[in-house]
């Protein structure tokens, strides 16, 4: 008897969607600090986008896990989604995804709790976003059944290149500041 592929297809699509949303959220977060568009784009708007993308990414992760539980192709137990290494399917590669997902949930929730945890603790935790992105990329490449496809490899390569470039940009360039002369000119007008 042939297995219904609906949930397997949904699991793959939601996993890729979550990865794309995570990548875009990371890029928005990096733009937030490096501000390559200057005053043309308000930081508060980028912040809203950054948070929205992260929340949508988490929702996609929820869909990814739910579809894997309902699918009969890999027969994922509930523990496999929450306990790293307990998946019968590619346990190490899935563990990367489990850790990334749990850390991502923690980072998203920590934003709302930053008044309790303090700003420094929140910032430290936020640095784990780089680990989350790395783990999610490794998970997609090693656990994803589409990874052998050229389009999928291009997707992971493009996402990694974009994040590396945006990180290097942030580390190298300071946001543009008005010079004293420009300030004086603006003040006079």
């Amino acid at each position: 008897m042939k297995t219904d592929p609906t949930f397997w297809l949904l699991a793959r699509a939601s996993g890729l969607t979550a990865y794309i949303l995570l990548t875009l959220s990371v890029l928005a977060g990096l733009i937030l600090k490096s501000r390559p568009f200057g005053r043309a784009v308000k930081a508060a708007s980028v912040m809203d986008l950054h948070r929205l993308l992260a929340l949508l990414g988490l929702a996609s992760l929820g869909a990814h896990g739910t579809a894997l539980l309902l699918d009969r192709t890999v027969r994922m137990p509930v523990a496999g989604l929450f306990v790293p290494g307990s998946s019968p399917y590619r346990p190490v590669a899935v563990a990367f995804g489990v850790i990334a997902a749990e850390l991502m949930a923690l980072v998203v929730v920590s934003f709302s709790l930053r008044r309790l945890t303090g700003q420094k603790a929140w910032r430290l935790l936020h640095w784990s976003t780089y680990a989350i992105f790395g783990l999610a990329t490794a998970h997609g490449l090693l656990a994803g059944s589409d990874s052998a496809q050229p389009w999928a490899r291009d997707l992971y390569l493009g996402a990694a290149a974009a994040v590396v470039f945006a990180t290097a940009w942030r580390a190298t360039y300071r946001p543009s500041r008005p010079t004293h002369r420009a300030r004086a000119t603006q003040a006079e007008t």
Partner: protein
Amino acid sequence: MTYRIVIDGLACSGFGDCADVAPDVFELDSHGKALLRVGTSSDPAVLDAASACPMGAISIEADD
């Protein structure tokens, strides 16, 4: 042009971009929250500081 600056203390999350952009106008307290050094300023950098705030916690009013 003089700018009147108001910080929404509830919205401020201590990113510190304002003090980075306009250090003559903004400073951070021991918890990392933004404080005003002055109530008004003619430095247009305050506009950049308001635009740079990720929480939109800085509002500026221009007086002629």
